[in-house]
């Protein structure tokens, strides 16, 4: 199927090339594709950027518009068409439909790390090694590079990242004399203390969130999803890390110690502002959201390292964040590659940071300006010191399912029931695992459920 697909794409590509007089660009493109030669690709890209062309980019990150404008200024002959095709899942649905239809997909698309395997392993994305982008590895943090490096191919360039940290409301913690927890056991104790002192206050909110749960299991050292040879998937949501998370979190759920408020709801923003929700364990992209969404709590919040499972052993995980990929359907891959490099490995990273994105490029993370920036919202704390350290402490070896997007969409049907009924999370995780296995096998994967 794959060869047939690419053959058809090539045929379409050829027709379009003659029709649109893009022959030069395409000839260069197919030359690299056929020979696999990596030498000279940088100059091929540079040449393509001096040709009249248009590329389409699907992205919802607000900075992309500005990056495209800066790019067009530098390469006036290339027009970058930025389309917001929806945020996250909405865009993936459209992208998946365009891939299935064989046309209509953009040249470049923003894809979060958790969704990347789905598109990469279904052979919809260009392996960026074709453009020599494998050499960019040293520019990025190990965890973000690991997220785009799948089965030996590089399928996206990382844009932002979300190393986790504990965001907490210092004012509430001080009021009730609660110490900032450094381990999850201390966290549970703090939750009990706080709720006992004031029943309207909760340590955090949680109604079941697939992204949060997988990030927590990640930090606990779990590796519930293992994919080999693209199609052999092993699921084990009862491995040591998963159980460690579930057993600890059970104490919070069963004890009514977390606020039953869904994240990103109006209630959530209100709760973050009035102290009902006293802390959040969440990705490093959160400060901008707090500043814009919860202005009334300015000065109250602080950032601490994510609580750990072993006292004194720093560990963290990624939560959210993503990169940008080139679609196989693209008829202008060289220009797309040029834009991608500009956006995520060149001038674009600074524009993205200015818009509040947390970078994945080590040079930006290590810069003095970034590390020593004092955040007024966080009472003058140098929050990036904590967040950058978290990026270094991310536990290696994690991977997502090649059909994570759908699996996350049925999280509420399974694990969510444990939240709703305040029952054992392990049972919910087992139900999720069964549903994942059923779906995967139905889609032609070989899913082993352990």
């Amino acid at each position, binding site marked *: *199927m794959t060869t047939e697909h690419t053959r058809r794409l090539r045929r379409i590509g050829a027709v379009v090339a003659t029709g649109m007089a893009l022959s030069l660009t395409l000839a260069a493109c197919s030359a690299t594709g056929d020979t696999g030669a990596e030498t000279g690709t940088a100059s091929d890209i540079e040449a393509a950027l001096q040709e009249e062309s248009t590329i389409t980019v699907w992205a919802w990150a607000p900075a992309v518009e500005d990056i495209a404008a800066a790019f067009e200024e530098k390469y006036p002959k290339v027009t970058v068409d930025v389309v917001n095709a929806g945020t996250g*899942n909405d865009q993936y*649905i459209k992208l*998946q439909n365009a891939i*299935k239809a064989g046309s209509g997909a953009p040249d470049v698309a923003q894809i979060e790390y958790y969704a990347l395997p789905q598109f990469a392993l*279904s052979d919809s994305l260009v392996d960026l090694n074709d453009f020599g982008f494998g050499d960019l590895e040293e520019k990025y943090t190990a965890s973000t590079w690991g997220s785009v490096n799948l089965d030996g191919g590089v399928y996206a360039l990382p844009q932002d990242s979300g190393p986790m940290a504990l965001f907490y409301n210092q004012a509430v913690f001080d009021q009730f004399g609660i110490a900032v927890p450094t381990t999850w056991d201390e966290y549970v104790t703090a939750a009990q203390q706080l709720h006992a002192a004031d029943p309207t206050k909760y340590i955090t909110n949680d*109604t*079941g969130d697939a992204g949060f749960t997988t990030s927590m299991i990640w930090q606990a050292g779990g590796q519930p999803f293992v994919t080999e040879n*693209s*199609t052999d998937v092993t699921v084990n949501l009862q491995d040591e890390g998963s159980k460690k998370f579930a057993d600890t979190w059970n104490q919070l759920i069963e004890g009514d110690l977390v606020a039953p*408020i*869904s994240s990103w*709801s*109006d*209630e959530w923003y*209100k*709760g973050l502002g009035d102290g009902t929700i006293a802390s959040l364990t969440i990705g490093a992209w959160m400060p901008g959201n707090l500043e814009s969404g919860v202005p009334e709590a300015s000065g109250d919040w602080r950032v601490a390292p994510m609580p750990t499972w072993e006292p004194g052993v720093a560990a963290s995980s990624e939560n959210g964040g993503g990169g940008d990929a080139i679609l196989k359907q693209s008829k202008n891959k060289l220009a797309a590659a040029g834009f991608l490099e500009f956006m995520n490995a060149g001038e674009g990273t600074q524009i993205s940071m200015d818009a509040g994105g947390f970078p994945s490029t080590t040079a930006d993370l290590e810069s003095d300006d970034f590390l020593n920036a004092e955040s007024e919202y966080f009472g003058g704390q140098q929050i990036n010191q904590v967040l950058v350290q978290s990026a270094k402490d991310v536990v290696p070896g994690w991977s997502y399912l*090649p*059909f994570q*997007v*759908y699996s996350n*969409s*049925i999280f*509420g*049907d399974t694990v*969510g*029931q444990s*939240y*709703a*009924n305040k029952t054992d999370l392990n049972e919910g995780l087992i139900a999720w695992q069964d549903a994942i296995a059923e*779906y995967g096998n*139905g*889609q*032609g*994967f070989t899913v082993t459920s352990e």
Partner: protein
Amino acid sequence: MTTLSLSAKTGAPAPRRQRKRDWSGWKFVGPFMVVFALVLIAPVIYSIYLSLFKDQLIGGNSFVGLANYGQALSDPKFWESIGRVSLFLVVQVPIMLALALFAALAIDSARLHLSSFYRIAIFLPYAVPAVVAALMWGFMYGTRFGLVGNVNDFFGIDIPSPLSNSWILASIGNIVTWEFVGYNMLLFYAALRVIPADLYEAADLDGAGTFRVIRSIKLPALRPAIVIGTIFSIIGSFQLFNEPNILQSLAPNSISTYFTPNMYAYNLSFAGQQYNYSATIAIIVGLLTAAIAYAVQISGSRKEV
């Protein structure tokens, strides 16, 4: 749907009456038939075609015959969703129709001051888009910052959350009733208005009281309208989608991805890329709805005689 197929049937035999084939009948129904074929027949045929295949992320597309139907008929999630809308149907529809009937009779009774105000007030929710209505009610249902929360705080009581697992279906029923009582009331009221005045005069002369008039004149005259209202409501129940789909973001653990058959089909195809299985579910639900609606129509019109 039933009325459409009837008109198609009566249209077809016309050309056969003449020996020489005369196409003028077809010229009249032609424009309709083209649109009908394009927007109704073609999608149904395409769905049936889709339902006979299985397209996998790995392995591609293959013909599987009726395997998808077998899978659907033994799918507990599918039956759970059918069971849920059936429960909704037998509880919500009678309540809604009874309320609509009461409102129509009250407005028609001519004993009500400001009857045109009541008519428009009861009808108004129907003009509110279902999406807006669901959002609005969703906010009112909030136990923390919503109306329910305010009531709890004010009276110091503890109303169970309308968005919890055990109350969510009733809460959705409440929204749907609020939306559609006015529509059904108007349906009934229109039927009441066409009853000839001499029937009332005759009843008056015979000394019939208000309730006797309702029982012997108004209700029999309303029967066709009630049958129509019931059929629309059955179809609406089986197609329940907007309200639960919007409330899902507020109550993700109470409303599953297979809460109603339509939500199941939607999530299968748009989140899970299972277009084929989704088409199968849609066809089975369509057949089931048509069968139940047809049964109601048959039994409704039989009693009429």
